[in-house]
């Protein structure tokens, strides 16, 4: 990426941006960005800071909070103590309840792969991938509330208004395909995650770095406003003429205004939008996939269909050079049955519903990426906002910000390994407690970015994704 010294060329590259312009697009067409800013600010950086191990990221996010003790984090001690009191004093209060007795996993754990990693019976397919996966068992979060905790996992802050990881990364690296958005979000069909689109928002970064939501239903346009609405006044010939007439107006307007790169950029953006009208339907058209591939993702089976499409789409997107894809496996709390992992009422029913969905899609994604040789350059992260309590809340479990598990695969991550340990019952992170900061620092590191150097000035502070924290988890880096 070129050093930003030439304002003119910088505005040229900014022209279009489907979010593909990266750092260089620290643009400000109003001329606000001046020598001063350039000197004091992030644009002095040359990216990548170091050779990158991977090119793109697929983040699977499971809103509602996945129970670590029923999925990834095997706790024999919890099994032994199951049924005994968790808090003899009776003083402890969780988010929505007082703790019940300790409750062992609702699903049986067993060891898998050469690495012998433990997984519960919820994941019959993922267990075949463990030798490609790295687990962080000692995640914790600063908040026990879905909204703020989800913000933290996605933006590094519990408050709204901060840029998401995908925004930071595209701000840093741009896209490899200028006909597609650099940062794509594949939302759960049932709704958005707690906190809403702020989880893929650009915060105070320019809006160009926000995630673009793509519909995976296969019906209707994949991107909003990609085409005009159905209307008798709209004609094919009219659309063509419209574009050429706008172009003519704009070029005449430009001809009397020398040195106006901002106007040229806007002309280019219209040209790009025409290309996007072709490229977006192409990437979302799953008919090109073989039956074998489709069935691997569970397409055609009702309960796997939706998340399977999201995962398959994610692969197609990174294949085409999209930098960051965020896939949601769950939505906000609306009403029971909760369309997410927030298993307050009945964990067996809830995780029994969502586990196999995640399992089928995520395992297919890892295997598919691998067989196409894409796994090495694609980092897959599977995250949630916090864990669930080892003590019971009726048949369910309450929120537990003290310990949860996140896994990664591909993109320069060692397979079959783990980092950090939760205590013997999975209540608190015991060894190497890890906030989102280290996870984010590691992801940036694999992409060739030094998390301390990817900064943006906002209201008095050179802001970072990792705030003033963060260490690369080198144990997990291949």
């Amino acid at each position: 990426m070129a050093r930003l010294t030439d304002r003119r060329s910088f505005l040229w590259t900014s022209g279009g941006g489907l979010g593909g312009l990266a750092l260089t697009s620290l643009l400000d067409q109003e001329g606000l960005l001046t020598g001063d800013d350039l000197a004091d600010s992030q644009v002095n950086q040359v990216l990548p800071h170091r050779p990158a191990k991977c090119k793109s990221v697929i983040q699977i996010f499971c809103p509602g909070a996945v129970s670590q003790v029923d999925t990834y984090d095997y706790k024999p001690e919890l099994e032994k103590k199951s049924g005994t009191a968790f808090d003899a004093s009776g003083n402890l209060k969780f988010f929505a309840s007082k703790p019940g007795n300790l409750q062992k996993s609702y699903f049986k754990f067993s060891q898998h792969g050469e690495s012998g990693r433990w997984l519960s019976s919820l994941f019959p397919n993922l267990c075949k991938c463990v030798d490609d996966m790295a687990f962080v068992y000692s995640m914790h979060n600063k908040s026990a509330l879905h909204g703020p905790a989800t913000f933290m996992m996605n933006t590094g802050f519990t408050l709204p208004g901060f840029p998401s990881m995908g925004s930071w990364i595209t701000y840093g690296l741009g896209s490899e395909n200028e006909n597609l958005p650099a940062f794509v979000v594949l939302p759960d069909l049932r709704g958005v995650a707690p906190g809403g689109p702020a989880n893929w928002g650009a915060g105070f970064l320019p809006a160009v770095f926000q995630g673009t939501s793509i519909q995976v239903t296969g019906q209707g346009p994949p991107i909003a406003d990609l085409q005009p609405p159905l209307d008798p006044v709209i004609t094919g010939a009219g659309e063509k003429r419209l574009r050429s007439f706008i172009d003519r107006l704009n070029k005449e307007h430009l001809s009397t205004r020398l040195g106006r790169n901002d106007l040229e950029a806007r002309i280019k953006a219209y040209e790009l939008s025409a290309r996007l009208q072709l490229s977006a339907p192409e990437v979302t058209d799953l008919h090109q996939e073989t039956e074998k591939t489709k069935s691997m993702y569970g397409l055609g089976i009702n309960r796997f269909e939706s998340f399977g499409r999201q995962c398959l789409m994610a692969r197609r997107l990174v294949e085409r050079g999209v930098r960051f894809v965020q896939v949601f496996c769950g939505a906000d709390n609306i009403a029971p049955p909760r369309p997410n992992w927030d298993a307050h009422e009945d964990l067996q029913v809830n995780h029994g519903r969502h586990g196999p969905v995640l399992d089928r899609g995520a395992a297919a994604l890892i295997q598919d990426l691998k067989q196409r040789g894409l796994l090495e350059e694609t980092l897959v992260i599977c995250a949630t906002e916090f864990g669930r309590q080892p003590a019971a809340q009726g048949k369910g479990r309450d929120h537990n910000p003290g310990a949860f598990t996140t896994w990664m695969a591909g993109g320069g991550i060692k397979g079959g390994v783990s980092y950090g340990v939760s205590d013997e019952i999975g209540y608190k992170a015991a060894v190497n407690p890890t906030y989102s900061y280290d996870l984010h620092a590691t992801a940036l590191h694999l992409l060739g970015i030094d998390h301390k150097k990817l900064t943006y000035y906002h209201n008095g502070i050179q802001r970072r994704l990792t705030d003033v924290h963060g260490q690369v988890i080198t144990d997990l880096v291949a």
Partner: protein
Amino acid sequence: MKDKPFLLCFLIGLITQLSGVSQDDSLRSPEKTRPLIKIDFETDIAPIFSSRCVECHNPQEKNGGLDLSNSKSALIGGESGKGIVPHDAEKSELWKKVSAREMPPTENPPLTNSQLQKIKEWIASGALWPADRILDQYLLSTPSRAGNDWWSLQPIVRPPIPKRVADTVWKNPIDSFVGKALKEKGLVLSGEADRSVLIRRLYFDLLGLPPTPQHLQQFLEDTRPDAYQRLVEQLLSSPRYGERWGRHWMDIAHYADTHGYERDQPRHHAWRYRDYIIESFNHDRPYDQFLIQQIAGDVMDPDNPQSNIATGFLASGPYDYTGIEEALSEKLKRQALADDMDDLVTTVMTSTMGLTVNCARCHNHKFDPISQQDYYQLTAVFAGMTKQDRVITNLDKYNNRKKTKLAIRSKIGAINEELRSLADVFDLADLVGGGDGSGNAPDGMGLDPRTGLFAKGTTGSLEGVKVNHFVTSPAACIEGCFIPDGGPSAGLGVPITSGGLKIQLPKTSGSCWDYFQKGPCNSQDFTELDGVDYNGPGHTLLSIHSNKGITFDLVAIRKKIGVRNLRFTSTMGFGGKHAESSADVFVFVDGKKVLEHQHVGRGSGGIPIDLRLEPQANYLTLVVTDDENGIGHDQIFFGDAWIQSVEEKSDLEKKRIGDLLDRRKELQSELRDIIEPTDLVFAAVGKEQPGQVHLLSRGDPEARAQEVFPAGLSCLTGLKSNFGSGKTSEKERRKKLAEWIIHPQNPLTSRVLVNRLWHHHFGRGIVKTPSDFGFLGSRPSHPQLLDWLAAEFLESGWSIKQIHRLILTSGTYRQRSDFNGFATTVDSDNQLLWRMNPRRLDIESIRDAILSVSGTINLAAGGPGYKDFDFVDKYAPVYKFITADRPELWKRTVYRFTVRSVPNRFMKILDCPNPSSLTPRRSQTTTALQSLSLLNNPFMIDQAKYFANRLEDQQPTLTQQVDLAFRLTFARPPSPQELTASCEMATENGLFYFCRALLNSNEFIYLD
């Protein structure tokens, strides 16, 4: 070009008097080494220590155990030994460390050789340091941080106006300042722009709207010498002005109409504060008053509604309802409250004084002279304040309104009475809402199936549920209710009356969600069946989310109605969203099943019910169970669940019933009109005597350190910043802060405001970071001009319009924006303002301009925000945006009901900032998604059609239509070539396509 920081010389002239020197004899043993040069502590040493050492070696933060802020502790030293050994540098740890270049740490610039020399000689000469001389780390600015001598903290001194540049026609002092700076680089101002450019610039700048063709024509034809000044005055007095400039203030107050976070609830009464802002700008409310009202209006003038509304400022940011009000854990609450406080303090200080105090939350500010102590003293100012709806009406008005409401209510009561006697319609939904069956249930009440009692609202899943346990209800016509599970636990059956009458039911999950509710329950998605919305006027809705049963007392109901032969009629259906979920519905009379519908789901539609209730029947029981697939989305509801007489009515009676229903509707709407402006505003409420406030180590609410008391920032040394003690009342604290902020000796408040005005007029401030006048902010491009404007501002009595006038009538503002090759090579960024900055419209202006050009704009001002979304009230409320296709949604964009959690996509893509972010300056991007939105969004398609219709309505021929279109969009007529090309295009593809093209053109979106 990089600005140089204004490092003001700090002169301390007096030589230390011996009488003030430390009593420690070792500090002055005269017979040791003689100094080569005379070293003075105050002039030579204190600046080095305070700017390079004390930041990490002070009483609070003793790195290595060393405190270098006073002579005593400096002598004692730290972990590695004695800090200073007078007369013996080599034995002094201080000297060892600095001479070995270990200190200051290597990431900082090293000390210069002459500084080292001075330190060495000072120690050698006996290290004289007066005992009472305590060094302040913030005294002086350094290359890496600002001190109390930072440029923006210095008093405003009105600078002399530079001599007019010889070759200019402009007489405005601004032009002298700008002209002088330009001249030094061999540049001059560009000439005055054309009138059509000027009027468009002025209109968008001051009103955020395009000039109408009539106004354009008038201005072009106005030959009076002061035509321009007249236009400025005319626009400044337009009510549209406040709508434009109020929006700028809303950006830095981060105003929105919802709380944000997970439970993003609407704030129905926030808009009054928005209207207050707009009105303040329109009436040119003096800025000092504007600020004092927003921070302490309720204290200064409690009887004035406007002063109370103004405190909406303190509540305008996001609010973590779940964390602050719902969480059970006290620790979580403390964290949420600390975050909320941080947002409040940050908002007040950055918006008024441009200081980033938030950086001192976890540690002392790394770049500005603001300590953690300063930060927490500010939090003490707001410690007793909460954010909530507050009543702002005066009591008389409030009472009058109450009386009127009562009168209308009693009329409605009489009608209900007569209706009951005539129609005998008795509403079961009204019963569970706490009414008497006539429709008088209060809003929001429901019946708790666990207790049989009425209670406000619902929270979703019910805890402490006891299945198959009948609870009697104290309500007259309700026997009681129960939560059924027909599985083994039911034994002989599920009891449905207090007498123990039992029925057989299927097995259920045994859990229960929501109360019996009049109207939709908490989580319900649909209220309509077969095209009838049972939540709409003229209908009623009884919601029973599974698993629940309720038994009504028919004897009591009969007594109320006075009729023996009754029917139960209703339309029943499924209100949930999910197809996979379904419920079973049963109706029993005296324990006998009279109706059963299994697997009622979204696809079942409306199921009509018409049951005859024999005169001897005692109990009517409605039961909803979960179909054994979880309670899920089983929001069953009964539309118009009415008990009525079986007898047919006469025509006369029917007519009377119809009339009464109409009259009741009228009265109800009258009532609504009165209720609507419940004079509330979401604002600050001083709640109580504030509790103790502590400094929080590392910003952690669990790590309380020393107690702090309300105070302002200590870096403004010229101002008294003590606001009281721990006993000072909540109100007094805010009042003191407000007075401190608007004190004429506070140099920041006026500088920051005039810079904001400049920023919006030129697209860039004299200081380019309008909310950061600290070290990381930028330095002023025209420091003297900034101070001159600030002085003018104070002298005008804080009149914002006066500063507008000064700026707008300057030649600097009236310049052309044309390219100039030579000037570009000298000053490519136009920092010196050799031309006007060409600019793109912001999203509010774009949207308002589109509405204005198409002729659809609705200029109705003020009032509740227009809601361009469908709202579903749930635990986490849902906002689904819709296309703005009717007049009430075509109000100016400033009146948009702004939702925090979900941005309006169209607005967001066009760079509308996140309303939870403080936005002193908007960023602009140019993307292909923007092009798609402006090309294809249904709103744009609609507006292009209206635009085309307008042209056809107003002009007979195509040529004239094209001419009008150009004047409307570009404030100029088309050139002959443009006219030809446009007519050709419009002929072949239709006027609609031509209009759509204009709305997408660069000329429409940009200002010269």
